[in-house]
């Protein structure tokens, strides 16, 4: 077997590995760290012990005969930073997943309808989508998140609204160019109904573009989610979350307790990097014409 060559293949490999690692973390992370992510109390033989707050990374302590390691230290409430960082993957990635899925589904559906039917409907939808697009993403998400309140689904919806226009615009553009293509005309001549033209002839041809937009949107959704929870929106403490912890850590950073905020911040950067690499590599591999042109 030959090794990877050039950016697309290396990007696919590195991005894929990072992405896969984060997905595994999201699925098993919470159960792996259990209570340690949300509580600073340790029970030994029915007795409760408090873990001291603000322990630096690499500390080892002994409580009631039990030896505990804190490779990334503890936070201002005595919770294990490593446990919070690992446990935090679930919330953010679940939200990123749902918001990407919702925006892709709605954006694609509306883009298909708008592009295929055209006319006044297309004008109205395009105008609406463009005004959404023109709005700064985070501010829009803040407004909707504040309106909807806490919860995975609510925050996912708030973020999804931000990305619907990207899918809408892309799909609509492809539909407009495909609508006039000879094979669609040939299908019309062959008596195909509008439904079968849209679903069998146009939609499958938009898939490569949709697929390459998914990881990029996913990465962006992670940042938006972190931004929202950084501001304390959409999440209920003590649920572990990178954005939320980053903000808490920021308050202790100047006092010298750098580890509380640094590690959640690194997780955000690394996960976004992984998804972006994957997205760019997929884009190069699936839509090669863009590179040649």
């Amino acid at each position, binding site marked *: 077997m030959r090794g990877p060559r050039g950016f697309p293949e290396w990007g696919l490999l590195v991005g894929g590995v990072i992405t896969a690692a984060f997905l595994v973390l999201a699925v098993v992370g919470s159960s792996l760290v259990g209570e340690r992510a949300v509580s600073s109390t340790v029970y030994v033989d029915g007795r409760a012990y408090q873990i001291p707050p603000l322990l630096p990374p690499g500390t080892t302590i002994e409580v009631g005969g039990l030896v505990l390691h804190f490779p990334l230290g503890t936070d201002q409430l005595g919770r294990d930073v490593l446990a919070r960082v690992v446990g935090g993957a679930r919330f953010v990635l679940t939200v990123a997943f749902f918001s990407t899925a919702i925006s892709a589904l709605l954006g694609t559906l509306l883009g298909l309808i708008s592009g295929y039917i055209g006319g006044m409907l297309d004008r109205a939808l395009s105008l609406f989508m463009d005004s959404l697009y023109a709005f700064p993403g985070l501010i829009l998400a803040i407004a909707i998140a504040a309106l909807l309140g806490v919860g995975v689904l609510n925050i996912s919806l708030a973020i999804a609204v931000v990305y619907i226009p990207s899918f809408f615009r892309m799909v609509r553009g492809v539909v407009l160019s495909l609508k006039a293509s000879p094979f669609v005309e*040939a299908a019309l*001549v062959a008596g195909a109904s509008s439904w079968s033209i849209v679903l069998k002839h146009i939609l499958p041809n938009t898939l490569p573009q949709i697929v390459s937009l998914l990881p990029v949107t996913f990465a962006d959704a992670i940042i938006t989610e972190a931004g929202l929870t950084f501001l304390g929106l959409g999440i209920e403490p003590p649920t572990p979350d990178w954005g939320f912890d980053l903000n808490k850590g920021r308050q202790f950073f100047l006092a010298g307790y750098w580890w509380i905020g640094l590690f959640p911040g690194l997780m955000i950067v690394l996960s976004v990097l992984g998804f972006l690499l994957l997205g760019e590599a997929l884009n190069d591999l699936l839509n090669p014409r863009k590179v040649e042109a």
Partner: protein
Amino acid sequence: MMLQVQNLWVKYETRRGVVEALSGVSLSVQEGEVLGLVGESGSGKSTLGLAIIRLLPRSAKVGGAVRFNGRDLLQLPEDELRRIRGREISMVFQDPFSSLNPVMRIGDHFAELMLEHGAAKSRDEALEAAGNILERLGVPRERLGDYPHQLSGGQRQRVAIGLALILKPRLVIADEITTALDALVERQIIDLVKEVKKEYKTSMLFITHNMGLVAEVADRVCVMYAGKVAEVGGVREVVEDPRHPYTEALLKSVPKIGGSKRVQPIPGEPPDMRNPPSGCRFHPRCPLATEKCRLEEPELVNVGGRYVACHFRS
């Protein structure tokens, strides 16, 4: 009379004026007959093909009548028209590289068409029939599992012909089907069309700019110029004894192997359809043109069994 086009007008309103693509065209196709439709670019021959099956862009204004087995296709509601498209009238396009869906297998093209029109009960039944017709058209049955990009241009056009024939339509509109192919493949496709004509006995509207091809495959020929019919008649008579000066010029512009005469280009260029010439539309380029041609529009009149629109031949 299976297909009868009566006084068909097609106009486009553009920002720079009204373009008249077809100005009162009448023609007919009999059962089992191949009618060759010839003309230069912009003569309206492709517009006519699309107008028959009502596939012109919405901006086109269409007038007249297209009678197909007694019914006027231009007045038919969309859902009834859909049942005619593909099933009773089918079409083969110029470019086989883009007239097949790149993400659908060849077999799926057939299956979709047949299931949509209820011509097959299952996918397997459709693929069986598709394999049979492909083999008759010289494409191996295994190609059903391939995507269009895996086929050569000639094979794709054979597939497109197969798609046009599989539902045994009454009329096939073939719009410049060999223009995008190289000379060798063109020959094979033309031979195929001749075989199809013998075997299926489908009527065909064979649109081309190549007089030579028409002479080979058509029974009758209709020469179009600037959105009007110049001459209609049996292919033999028209090719051997053209009556309209435009037909004559068109024939002289076709190179012949071994011919001693030089190829003669037609002087001038096709008219601007926003502002077509007065009188006979060919008069600015016609060697015979007189004052009468400039002022009076010639009628299509019967001249010894064929129809010619020229003041000098009536």
